[in-house]
């Protein structure tokens, strides 16, 4: 009997031989054939997480796509967004939902400042220099937050509760974050496709020299792009703060997964970022349930490497600006 129980429970099989690689998948397949209700719940969690992940990658993919700069400060931009929302709701007593646009505004200014001070002077330099400069920015902002707000985790006081839909449990905080993510993605897409400035940004992404020839002020596009990218990080960070505790170092994990999503979806592609976010979110939720420890992250990196090798332009590469 005891043997039966252990073989059913999807628990870490630490120290076991090959079984630990095979058993979770066997378990997963049996759950599918048995139509376990838990699958629906996991699917819902994956969707909720994936939508937010997509939002975290949006700003990164924009800066990467338009300026060809890997912005290592993106993760800490998210953290600034989280603290902005927290500060607004704790200190000023304003609803955290109203804090999100404020976070976006704060991050836009911060992004432009960071761009003018650190990226602009070396935009033509070898790319490793930009990488190290943005890394320096990461250290500065992260430690500044640590000094001002202590390294202790913070939390936005917000009890939204949850709803049940057809036996599936949906935490409302995460649900609103997903709605914000989807809304932001549609808004940014409309901005890029419909407005004059958006078209200029896409043009610059396609061909910097060509953009210069037709009279686009590429310098201005650069700092606006960096600002908008940072503002998107503010929205993303603010949405995450609705449902999760955070500390000055939370950005690191999000940063790495945002890179994965950007490459997975295709550089500069918004639908790609969404699909990439969903894939990463699903792997994390399902992997977290079936696989021991943080093995899910191993799968994510394998997928990342596979994409880089086989289809570096990503799933939706080249289709959108």
């Amino acid at each position, binding site marked *: 009997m005891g043997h039966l129980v252990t073989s059913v429970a999807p628990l870490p099989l*630490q*120290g076991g031989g090959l079984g630990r690689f095979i058993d979770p998948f066997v378990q997963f397949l049996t759950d599918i054939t048995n139509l376990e209700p838990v699958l629906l719940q996991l699917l819902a969690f994956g969707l909720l997480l994936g939508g937010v992940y997509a939002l975290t990658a949006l700003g990164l993919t924009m800066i*990467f796509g338009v300026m*060809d700069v*890997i912005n290592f400060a993106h993760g800490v931009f998210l953290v600034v967004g989280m603290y902005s929302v927290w500060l607004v709701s704790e200190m000023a007593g304003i609803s955290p939902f109203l804090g999100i646009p404020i976070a976006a505004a704060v991050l836009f200014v911060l992004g432009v400042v960071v761009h003018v*001070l*650190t990226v602009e*002077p*070396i935009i033509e*330099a*070898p*790319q*490793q*220099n*930009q*990488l*190290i*400069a943005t*890394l*320096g*920015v*990461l*250290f*500065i902002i*992260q*430690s*500044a937050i*640590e*000094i001002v707000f202590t*390294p202790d985790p913070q939390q936005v006081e917000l009890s939204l509760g949850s709803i049940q839909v057809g036996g599936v449990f949906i935490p409302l905080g995460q649900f609103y974050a997903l709605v914000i993510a989807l809304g932001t993605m549609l808004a940014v897409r409309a901005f890029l496709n419909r407005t004059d400035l958006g078209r200029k940004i896409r043009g610059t992404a396609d061909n910097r020299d060509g953009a210069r020839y037709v009279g686009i002020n590429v310098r201005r596009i650069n700092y606006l792009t960096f600002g908008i990218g940072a503002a998107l990080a503010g929205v993303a960070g603010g949405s995450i703060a609705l449902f999760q505790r955070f500390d000055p170092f939370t950005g*690191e994990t999000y940063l*790495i997964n945002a*890179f*994965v999503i950007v*490459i997975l979806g295709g550089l500069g592609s918004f639908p790609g970022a969404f699909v990439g976010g969903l894939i990463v979110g699903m792997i994390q939720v399902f992997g977290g349930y079936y696989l*021991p*420890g*943080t*093995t899910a*992250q*191993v799968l994510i*990196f*394998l997928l*990342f*490497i596979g994409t*880089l*090798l*086989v289809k*570096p332009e990503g799933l939706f590469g080249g289709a959108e600006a």
Partner: protein
Amino acid sequence: MSAIESVRDRYRTFDEQRYAPLVKGVALFGLLAALPVIIEIDVAGMELAALLSLKVLILTVIYAYTAQSWNIMSGYTGQFSFGHAAFFGIGAYATQKLLVDFAVNPWVGMLVAGVLAAGYGLVIGALSFRFKLQGHYFALATLAFAELLRFVVTNMSELRGANGYFKPFPRDYGAEYGLVAFQFQNDLPYYYLIVGFLLVVTLVSWVIKNSWVGLYFFAIREDERAAASVGVPSFRYKLIGVAVSAFFTALGGAYWSMYFNTIRPDTVFALFKNVELLLPAVVGGPGTLLGPIVGSFIVTPVSEIARTTFSDINGLDRIIYGAFLVAIVIYSPRGVVSWPSQARALWKRVRGDEEVSE
């Protein structure tokens, strides 16, 4: 002709001699060897040791060593690796695994680790180069290969998961404190050991630079297609660069695991280890022999001194470090070793371009 100019001319004559690199190398490593004594010299009641402890010197030389190893691949062949923590971590883990679980002498373990890391490097290189990854994509791929190992090791009970290894006592593997055991009871021998490591990798770099292998490397860095069109087997030579670089980086990891008491996935495979390992080369001047060493003597003490000076405010040291990083890549994109020639150019401009021929 002024006195300065005659000195300069004499230096130039010396520089053209065949023995010049040897003399410079001996001078440099002589200086490194004397450093533990120099920092304790009393100058007007102040000694450098107040700022620079032997521990900081060891750390500095470790990063000079790893940056020199990184340079062989990324500085010479131009393939910017952002994932050298993979090789460093393999070096640390393979050495400790063999030492703790099989009582294999760390010197042997270190060489095994080097070969393993070179193998992993060949896999990364073969895949990335075969699929023609370049620039950012190559950097991200190497980062992914390093992060992959971090999570694999964290989840493997065979490698003690997130807890990592605790360095055993020499008697646990049948040795006495000393060179054979790779363990000493004070820091001074550790310092000379890592200076020796640095000497070896610098010699190897020098030999590569001054051979046709180096010529091929630089040709690939400057223009890979042009190099291939005149018959440079670029795929093979890029792989050689990766393998040699990975091998030496792993030895650095092995040293790290024998100097510090513990290794964990979060320390030797850390995301920022990737940066720390290569930073001195970028700061000093990528692709140069002196750059990684000079760079490390700038970067590492700044970070360590900031940490000890501002220890009462947690994080202030990293603000200074970050500002320092930003400043250095903005104001000195070609590295610190280019300062003398830049200063000379500036001097010439100030004097009104009298000697344009120089």
